[in-house]
């Protein structure tokens, strides 16, 4: 009948997406569209999707991309603008998320799930140590709390934070921290400002905090590793993606909005894994139809009602309607904190930072700059370099990359 019977979908290998494979069996049944899933580790996915898209596409009909790519790729014409019918209720999508996935007001990728960051700490340990962590607490307070909980002999480390090099790994956290210290990646002329005093203060603080009160080998830890540590009861606090909350299995977890040194940009990041349609595909309509389904309210219902999953496993951070669902609220103690965190994030370009994005800059050169700096920060964390040296090297590398890119 001339309609595509197959869609190839590239997804990141995260729980929600893996679950989608099962949930979507119903979609296949309903529409007759067969779905081929390619699930890949984040870095590999990015590389694959980039090379596919940049070389004219055609391999994938639907791709998972993040907030960093969506606006740029939309601008470059690599992915299709997404406009869905009224039933889709685009206004239900959290505004910050929607803004982050748009270029000049047009949405290019639909959020599958979104996240911000927050503090997840062990109330039992803070209580025992006689400290508290408040919403948007000061960094000094956070450090004091970490110090109080830190007890390596008992296998408990005060603070678990990302340290593994990567613009989406340690730099995601470090950038929010720099933001809260008043720093930014670039100035209004897109000149890197990594050697600024704000950066220095933030990185010194980060190295000090994680170096003294973090687990050994922090320079290798990112979301997964810390999640494992946390669930082993080895972490006093963890500042990371809000999505982590749904995986936590230890008792006594409490949530707080991210610490802030008093900067208006805020200390929360904003991220969404979204779905987009590359312009190279031959099955644009079917792909869009699939995305419309997968990012819809019904999808949330489908997961919640699915016998294998249930309400604890619905994707969050994309729509305000999800948070309004009583079934969801019943199982998600973190819902309020998560929503607050997402809403307080501000991805738009402002005077303080000329680029779109909180913990990244939505420009094509950012991954390269971000990776280079990430390695330097990791080196500083391992003590291979002083913070000043690391930042100087970062600045030099960033300048060279930006100049090379024509800025």
């Amino acid at each position: 009948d001339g309609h595509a019977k197959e869609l190839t979908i590239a997804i990141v290998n995260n729980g929600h997406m893996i679950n989608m494979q099962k949930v979507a069996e119903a979609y296949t049944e309903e529409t007759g569209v067969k779905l081929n899933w390619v699930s890949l580790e984040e870095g590999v996915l990015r590389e694959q999707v980039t090379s596919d898209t940049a070389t004219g596409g055609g391999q994938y009909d639907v791709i998972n991309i993040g907030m960093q790519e969506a606006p740029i790729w939309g601008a470059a014409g690599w992915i299709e603008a997404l406009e869905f019918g009224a039933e889709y209720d685009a206004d239900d999508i959290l505004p910050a998320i929607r803004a982050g996935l748009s270029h000049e007001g047009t949405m290019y990728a639909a959020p599958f799930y979104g996240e911000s960051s927050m503090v997840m700490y062990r109330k039992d340990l803070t209580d025992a140590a006689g400290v508290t962590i408040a919403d948007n607490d000061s960094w000094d307070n956070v450090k004091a709390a970490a110090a109080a909980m830190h007890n390596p002999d008992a296998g408990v480390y005060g603070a678990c934070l990302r340290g593994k090099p990567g613009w989406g790994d340690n730099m995601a956290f470090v950038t929010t921290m720099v933001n809260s210290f008043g720093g930014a990646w670039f100035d209004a002329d897109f000149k890197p400002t990594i050697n600024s005093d704000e950066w220095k203060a933030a990185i010194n603080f980060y190295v000090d905090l994680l170096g003294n009160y973090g687990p050994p080998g922090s320079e290798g830890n990112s979301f997964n590793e810390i999640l494992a540590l946390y669930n082993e009861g080895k972490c006093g606090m963890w500042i990371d993606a809000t999505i982590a909350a749904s995986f936590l299995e230890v008792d006594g977890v409490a949530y707080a909005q991210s610490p802030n040194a008093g900067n208006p940009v805020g200390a929360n990041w904003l991220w969404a894994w979204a779905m987009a349609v590359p312009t190279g595909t031959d099955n644009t309509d079917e792909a869009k139809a699939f995305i419309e389904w997968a990012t819809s309210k019904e999808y949330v219902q489908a997961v919640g009602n699915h016998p294998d999953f249930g309400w604890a496993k619905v994707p969050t951070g994309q729509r305000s309607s999800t948070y309004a669902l009583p079934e969801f609220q019943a199982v998600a103690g973190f819902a309020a904190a998560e929503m607050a965190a997402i809403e307080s994030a501000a991805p738009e370009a402002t005077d303080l930072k000329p680029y779109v994005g909180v913990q990244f800059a939505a420009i094509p050169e950012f991954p390269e700059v971000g990776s280079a700096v990430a390695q330097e920060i990791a080196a500083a964390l391992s003590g291979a370099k002083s913070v000043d040296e690391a930042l100087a090297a970062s600045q030099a590398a960033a300048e060279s990359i930006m100049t090379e890119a024509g800025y």
Partner: protein
Amino acid sequence: MSNRTLPRLLQSPAVVLLLIWMLVPLSMTLYFSFIRYVLNNLRKPEWMTPALSNWRGFGNYEFVLKSKDFIFAIQNSLLIVCSILFLTVILGVLIAVLINKSFPGQGIVRVLLISPFFVMPAVNAVLWINMILDPVLGLQGIAVGSINDLVDGLRAAPGVGWFFSLWPELTPISFRATQTSAYAVIIMVTWQWTPFAILIFMTSLQSEDQQQKEAAILDGASTWSQFRFLTLPHLGRPIAIVVMIQAIFHLSLYAEIEIVSRGNGNKNLPYLIGEFANNNIGAASATGIFAVILANIVAIFLLRIVGKTLME
């Protein structure tokens, strides 16, 4: 002449295939290395399609040469390749000699020893860095933790407690740190490739001339002298082959470097190319050309050492 034409022509399919396989992508790489070519650029969209109008001369090469990790990548690449070669050859020789003479269970030990060679590089890296070397959750962390606990317990013990209180607390080593990530890669690749060396040395040892050994015994040579003066020289050629093959494979390590530390403290040219290839294909291509040059230097160097013996 006449009779030899057809037999000689038989090598042409392979030669032609490899020529195409090498030349076509390589010439494209060469072309890209001389133009501005990026995957995405908001300010200069014209750079996004490879075209002669973006000709840049040696600009990409200059950029790569000046970039912060280029020299480091070359040095580090040589460091890890040489360390792995050194370790695999030493371990390979020792273990091959150890298991050469028959002993109960020789077959099983041999099977155990060669198994690592079949493991995929990515699995190897993931296995080692996460499950074995991780300072907290891996075996290293668990072992260090248990020893510390044990020593702790003993400190309190009456009588011998003072002795254990002299013991320092062990701290686990992070193998993903800038200073150590190269060692992690060296360890895991050595683990994987030592079996290869063992296998080659073992076959070679079996062909060792028994009469030479007997002659040496009559000449009064000790076991060590026999090893030093007969076995080691006998292994010269297999060592050359091990060095050569491994150099070929290890110059292009990728998965291990990626998985261990994402290039932090540990890089080689292929990895650097991968980093550039995120966006800047021109620079990646220029690095590629450098890598080809380096590979050929190493190849010529290796051939000087081992080429002669290989053709006999």
